[in-house]
């Protein structure tokens, strides 16, 4: 493995390759952004392990995009990328143990960082002991991780790119830092960068009682690493971890200057039962208090401030001592790298603008609740607006009067179905019998709607409206249409006639007469009907015509629409929308019906087709020559 070339005290360097367990796209991008500003030759992420999906993940490398492979299991990833020796484990507290044990069992994986909080103590102890027995290292659980400046970061360690630049983490300094708290890691990076040449490496071991690796484990690595000149640590009340460091100091095993502070000096002033934020932060004995630990550090020769406020000053004091002695040299700062701003972030901050591609004026899902024409969905439901009311909002952008909404619902019910033989239903049934899915079969039926099937609503509305506005008398209108050779749309029915009236039309008319302020265009149409039925009994006002005409009456008389808006409704074909919507109900019914029945493929009987082939003469190209 590639480890052979690395010293044991090195956890991460500029060639470190890692797996990220868990599809944490933000953390993944943060790691890549860090790699990029550190001018690494290649990304630090070898692959993503995502138990629910294998494949690829696209991420940014600077302003370009790269592809990261994604595996379902740790062992598959390890086989494919034996050079990756780190796993950043974002698994939840429920699966952190199993996945981390799996990673430790892979020969090529040497460091496992466990982010999850709430890993049981026994599991954490087994993880730590297993790692130690194999000469491996577990960082965490319950931590953000750690990082080596200018080389590698675990997940979200050190936060945003701006923060990384502010704390100069894109290039190594000379300070090795370790803390329990992950939240304080970033703050410490900030403090240390302001008071020295910055961080070489920083690790947060996590606030639990039994971290997989201890502060001393990392301090001993810092002691061995010649690039690290001074060590800083931030401990916490509770537990005895700090005493292991103090013992190492007393035994002369730590020779580099050590700045130490133990937080929790407030605990003697608080009731004994207060549990601090970290699980391990509770002093069970006098020895475990922050005061005792700080004093013991002082006695052992560490640099200990009088409070956390003085931590930076203490770091500065030691750093300046090292500078004066020549142990560290000042160096020229490399150029501060840049990373392109994320589009969404730049947009949110108002730094950039871009014309939008779409405009939407009917609904808005960008807030915490979807709006229909500005009205909250919950209010729509509360007001019991019904389907008619919702169509009013989404099609007409109006809160229609109640009778208008009811009329729309009446129309939808009336047009919902007209038996299996009509074009739409027939097509849908044939498609369904051919084994097509619901949506395909529905589309097949809907595609028949047009000038000859179901499309007469708009045409009738248009023609009658036009005639009325042009001031044509019913007689003039009928004569005019006849002269043009056009059948009047909305007039005529295959079966129904004056003697056998269409019940649907009667329903619509009686509703309109009872509810609409006026039915001017309907009255006009009925005069036209009198003329046409006088010629032929079945030239009645049909259901399409009646719907179209009454809709115009509704819009004109309800007072909610301007004339231009009514013109637009007719022009844009709103009314055929009513037919398509209503008839979908029936089409879906027919499709499901066929599926329920287990119908087989439909083939039209040949005896029902008149086969009339053209003669050879007719198909010959030379015929016309």
């Amino acid at each position, binding site marked *: 493995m590639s480890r052979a070339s690395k010293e044991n005290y090195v956890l991460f360097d500029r060639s470190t390759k890692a797996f990220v367990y868990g599809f944490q796209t933000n953390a993944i991008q943060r790691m890549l952004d860090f790699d990029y500003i550190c001018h690494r030759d290649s990304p630090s992420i070898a692959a993503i392990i995502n138990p629910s999906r294998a494949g690829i993940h696209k991420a940014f490398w600077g302003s370009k995009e790269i592809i990261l492979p994604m595996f379902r299991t740790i062992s598959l990833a390890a086989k494919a990328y034996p050079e990756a020796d780190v796993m950043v484990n974002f698994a939840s507290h429920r699966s952190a143990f199993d996945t981390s044990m799996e990673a430790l069992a892979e020969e090529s994986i040497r460091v496992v960082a466990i982010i999850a909080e709430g890993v049981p103590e026994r599991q954490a102890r087994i993880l730590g002991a297993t790692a130690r027995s194999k000469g491996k290292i577990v960082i965490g659980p319950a931590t953000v991780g750690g990082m080596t400046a200018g080389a590698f970061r675990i997940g979200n360690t050190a936060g945003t790119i701006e923060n990384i630049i502010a704390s100069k983490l894109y290039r190594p300094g000379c300070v090795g830092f370790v803390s329990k708290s992950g939240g304080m890691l970033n703050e410490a990076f900030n403090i240390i960068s302001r008071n020295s040449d910055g961080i070489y490496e920083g690790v947060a071991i996590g606030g639990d009682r039994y971290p997989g690796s201890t502060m001393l484990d990392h301090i001993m690595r810092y002691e061995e690493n010649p690039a690290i000149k001074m060590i800083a640590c931030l401990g916490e009340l509770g537990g005895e971890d700090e005493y292991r460091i103090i013992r190492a100091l007393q035994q002369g095993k730590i020779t580099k200057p050590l700045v130490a502070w133990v937080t929790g000096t407030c605990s003697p002033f608080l009731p004994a*039962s207060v549990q601090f934020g970290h699980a391990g932060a509770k002093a069970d004995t006098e020895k475990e208090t922050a005061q005792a630990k700080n004093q013991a550090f002082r006695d052992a020769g560490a640099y200990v401030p009088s409070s956390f406020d003085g931590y930076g000053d203490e770091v500065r004091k030691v750093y300046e001592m090292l500078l004066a002695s020549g142990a560290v040299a000042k160096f020229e700062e490399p150029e501060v790298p840049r990373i392109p701003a994320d589009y969404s972030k730049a947009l949110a901050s108002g730094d950039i603008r871009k014309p939008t591609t779409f405009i939407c004026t009917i609904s808005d899902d960008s807030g915490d609740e979807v709006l229909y024409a500005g009205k909250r969905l919950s209010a729509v439901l509360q007001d019991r607006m019904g389907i008619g009311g919702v169509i009013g909002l989404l099609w007409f952008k109006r809160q229609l009067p109640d009778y208008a909404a009811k009329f729309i619902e009446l129309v939808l019910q009336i047009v919902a179905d007209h038996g299996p033989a009509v074009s739409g239903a027939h097509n849908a049934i044939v498609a369904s019998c051919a084994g097509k899915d619901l949506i395909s079969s529905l589309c097949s039926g809907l595609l028949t709607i047009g000038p000859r099937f179901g499309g007469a609503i708009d045409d009738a509305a248009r023609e009658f409206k036009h005639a009325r506005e042009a001031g044509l008398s019913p007689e003039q209108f009928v004569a005019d249409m006849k002269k043009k050779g056009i059948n009047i749309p909305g007039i005529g029915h295959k079966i129904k006639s004056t003697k056998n009236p269409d019940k649907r039309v009667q329903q619509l008319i009686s509703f309109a007469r009872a509810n609409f302020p006026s039915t001017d265009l309907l009255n006009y149409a009925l005069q036209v009907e009198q003329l046409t039925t006088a010629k032929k009994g079945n030239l009645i006002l049909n259901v399409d015509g009646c719907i179209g005409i009454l809709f115009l009456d509704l819009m004109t008389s309800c007072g909610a629409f301007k004339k231009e808006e009514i013109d637009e409704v007719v022009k844009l074909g709103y009314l055929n929308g009513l037919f398509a919507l209503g008839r979908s109900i029936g089409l879906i019914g027919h499709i499901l019906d066929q599926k329920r029945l287990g119908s087989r493929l439909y083939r039209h009987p040949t005896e029902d087709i008149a086969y009339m082939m053209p003669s050879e003469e007719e198909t010959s190209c030379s015929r016309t020559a």
Partner: protein
Amino acid sequence: MAQRGIREYDAKRLLARILPEYLKDFSYRGSLALVEPETDLEELEAREPWMKTSRLVVKPDQLFGKRGKHGLVLLDATWPEAEKFLKENMGAEVTIGTVTGRLTHFLIEPFAPHEEEFYAAISSDSDGDNIFFSQQGGVYVEENWDKVLRWHVDVLAGIQGLDIKSDLPESLGEKRSAIDMFLRALWRFYSETGFSYLEINPFTFHRGSIVPLDMVAKLDDAEEYWQKKRWAGLSFPEPFGRSLSKEELFIKDIDSKTGASLKLTILNPEGRVWTMVAGGGASVIYADTICDLGFAGEMANYGEYSGDPNTEETYYYTRTILDLMTRKKDPRGKVLLIGGAIANFTDVAKTFKGVVMALEEYQEKLQEAGVKIYVRRGGPNYEQGLKLMRSLGDRLGVPIEVYGPETHMTRIVPLALGGGSA
């Protein structure tokens, strides 16, 4: 998540129910009854018929020890005597060490006359567990600590290869083997039931089988997911002398339902210094600094929020604190420290949005209570978050000072409490 004490009642019930899985001839039945303030004693008596036929022990069961020394244990009593004892002591105020509280929970169990008292305990460390045993159990174990035997069980190797028996004194006679088996079973029970501490002091032998007389136990509450079945019906009481306020319970409830962390402990509701600090580590440092400056007595609460809570969660958290701190006025005014380190991944703007919503809601009350607010925070979207706070200060009519990562984390503490300038 942490180690949490459980009642002796629950510890003994667990032992009675589960230890037989590891120790066939463990015949302790666990006849136990827990008396709470609302327990109907007549109903209890009907449910637990042994109470009328056995001699009884009654003792408080509220996570504190040395009950005998405090004269709180009734031994070898009849049920009428026990009833009298319960009536006299239920709700009584007692002081244990430095903590004063009310007696609210009592354990009743059959009295086991005995001569021998043995000590057994198991604790954990980073490499494994420690099993302790002593022939001199009971109240004398501490003064005879040098006689306590100790075995270390490696966390990976387990107990298989460990020889306990040959370390046990010959003088135990035929009990030697029984104690060896008991300690082995006890360790397996301990390690597979989510314990982080267990002490049976003392236990004794009654008609040849082991009876635990007194038990103390802590569980690792992070095991809950794995121990659902074994822990069914078990509760984690608050430490003695500490009952959670309505507000603390409210925050605890939110905390239990989110992946983020929200903690609140009220120290002194009359205090003038209130904190709302992000992060388990930073919150301790803020509390340290307040105490360093001599304001420990004024510190009203300890708490923290972390792990990227959403806007709604920070809104409720803030509202709870604002409600508490504006209930009573103080002529000297009050301060609210909204502090935190430089976050790694918590979205500062998002969390502050909820904070701002609550502050706006409490505008009038904050003005009336003379609250001054100090903010310090860094991390993702902190510029936006701090801007939100600054603009709020203008329209709220409450003084708000806002600082970012360029200012030392705890600098706002002396600024707020007097003792320095920015």
